[in-house]
């Protein structure tokens, strides 16, 4: 199959099918409804299921149930919908089940607006739901990368038996770009006998699988949390992904930016380069685990006068940038949260205001 022109939302739906996920439960919300629209047509063609829940709360638990049975399952929503699913996300994490959540973020808080935003950074990387759990969070900056990350998300969720979230702002869902899909349809989870309640007769394992999140005994709950923590520590070791940009130069400033915002920053960096001003960027592709070491090293380079976190929020990722840099360089934030995206010219002005 050659390249095809797709909206991010459509491409995410198709990629899930290519990843072998034939179970999709969702509730429509702008700006991600095209995923549901697309899959309502496509799922029947491939023998899959699209079921619209009565709310996002229900959808979250549909994922819990399907994952518990050993099915590859995913959902898509936008900010307020993900808030409603957050309880189930905590339960799924506690029960150590794989599932993929896609958040095409819109402006908040509350109902907010329908334009692009990255203001769910905290929700995705620091919790949202209750308890000591983490999501592996992937942040695409284009439609092809959204496809690649969906393909990657299912094996990662199964490797860690943990929910994976894809965090894309509204523009990632709505913009169109040419994309290519691998023709290799993936199969169901290979390790599902480890957790699935799929009946003793069909499995190699002798022990029965139990899906639960209740541990009334303090010692058992402590032990359970240590198991989870060990997983999250392993993610920090093995799953950090980022893209450096213009990093081989004698840059005077370092931008940290992800998703749509990073595309604007790239244009700004190219424009400054043309004027003889070198600026580098680290684009986190995983928001958890966060590329702490890469940012710290890049910020510590001689000649780097400032680190600027440019984001579509009122300053969320900047907290992780700050703890990465650890005082080695001044850290600033620049961003917007109403739905307007800063222009390349605006980013250039901001960078120039901080450098000598």
């Amino acid at each position: 199959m050659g390249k095809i022109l797709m909206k991010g939302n459509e491409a995410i739906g198709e990629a899930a099918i290519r990843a072998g996920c034939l179970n999709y439960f969702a509730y429509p919300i702008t700006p991600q409804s095209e995923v549901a629209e697309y899959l309502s047509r496509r799922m029947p063609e491939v023998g899959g299921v699209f079921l619209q829940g009565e709310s996002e709360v229900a959808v979250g638990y549909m994922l819990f149930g399907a994952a518990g049975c050993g099915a590859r399952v995913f959902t898509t929503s936008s900010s307020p919908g993900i808030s409603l699913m957050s309880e189930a996300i905590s339960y799924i994490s506690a029960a150590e089940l794989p599932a993929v959540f896609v958040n095409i973020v819109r402006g908040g808080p509350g109902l907010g607006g329908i334009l692009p935003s990255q203001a769910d950074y905290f929700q995705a990387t620091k919790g949202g739901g209750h308890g000591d759990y983490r999501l592996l969070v992937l942040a695409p900056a284009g439609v092809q990368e959204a496809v690649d990350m969906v393909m990657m998300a299912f094996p990662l969720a199964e490797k860690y038996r943990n929910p994976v979230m894809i965090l894309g702002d509204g523009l990632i869902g709505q913009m169109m770009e040419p994309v290519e899909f691998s023709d290799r349809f993936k199969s169901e989870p290979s390790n599902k006998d480890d957790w699935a309640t799929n009946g003793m007769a069909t499995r190699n394992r002798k022990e029965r699988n139990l899906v639960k999140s209740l541990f009334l005994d303090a010692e058992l709950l402590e032990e359970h949390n240590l198991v989870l923590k060990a997983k999250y520590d392993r993610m920090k070791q093995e799953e950090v992904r980022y893209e450096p940009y213009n990093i081989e130069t004698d840059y005077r400033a370092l931008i940290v930016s992800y998703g749509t915002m990073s595309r604007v920053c790239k244009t700004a960096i190219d424009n400054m380069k043309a004027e003889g001003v070198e600026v580098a960027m680290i684009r986190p592709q995983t928001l958890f685990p966060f590329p702490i070491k890469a940012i710290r090293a890049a910020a510590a380079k001689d000649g780097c006068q400032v680190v600027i976190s440019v984001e579509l929020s009122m300053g969320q990722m900047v907290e992780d940038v700050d703890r990465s840099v650890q005082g080695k360089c001044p850290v600033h934030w620049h961003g917007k949260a109403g739905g307007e995206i800063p222009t390349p010219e605006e980013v250039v002005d901001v960078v120039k205001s901080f450098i000598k």
Partner: protein
Amino acid sequence: MIGFNTVEKLKGIVVVVGNYGSGKTEVSINLAVNRKRAGIDVRIADLDLVNPYFRTREARKPLAKLGIEVVMPAEKYLKADLPILSPVVAGLIRRPSQLTLIDAGGNDVGATVLASLADAFRKTSVQMLQVVNPYRPFTETIEGCLKMRDEIEKTSKMTIIGIIGNANMIDETAIEDIYKGYDFVKALSDESRLPLKFITAPATLLAEIDTGRFSCPVLPIERQLVPPWIKAAGLKK
């Protein structure tokens, strides 16, 4: 537009329909600009009640500079995903400009709004054209395009009378894509017996394209609907 002035009939009310992302809006905007440059009085109505992003209304400022009026919901509702149909639209249909372009939303869902204008349309003659980009999902086959046509005709309660070929891969469009896309819409035109009104090509590629291959005019596209890191093409009078 190359050879376009020969298409005298493209006047009056032209309704542009097609599947999601087929390029209705980019085509409508560029058609409006092209006809305005040819000295025709043009107005364009944004009837996209479906998609909250990348609508005609995004280009209202450059269009206004050229003297092309964009009819759309009141300013305060511009960023809402509410199905607002401006009452001005019915007036626009009753008192059309030399060329009145109506840019409907995607798929049958987007065309539903047209049925609510049926009364206004009844008293006038309308040309409804289907935009086809064969590199988009659900319209990569002739059957897919015909199904889309049926669905749109059913919900809009109107008849499609022609095809606009809009084969493109946005920034990655190659000349070969234009040629292959033309062959596809030509075959669709033969199969459906709907005339191929025109095809499009990026203005930047026009010099390299052998237009002698085509039996229809070519509308150059100067891209207006762009993400924030790309500059829209400047529109000269």
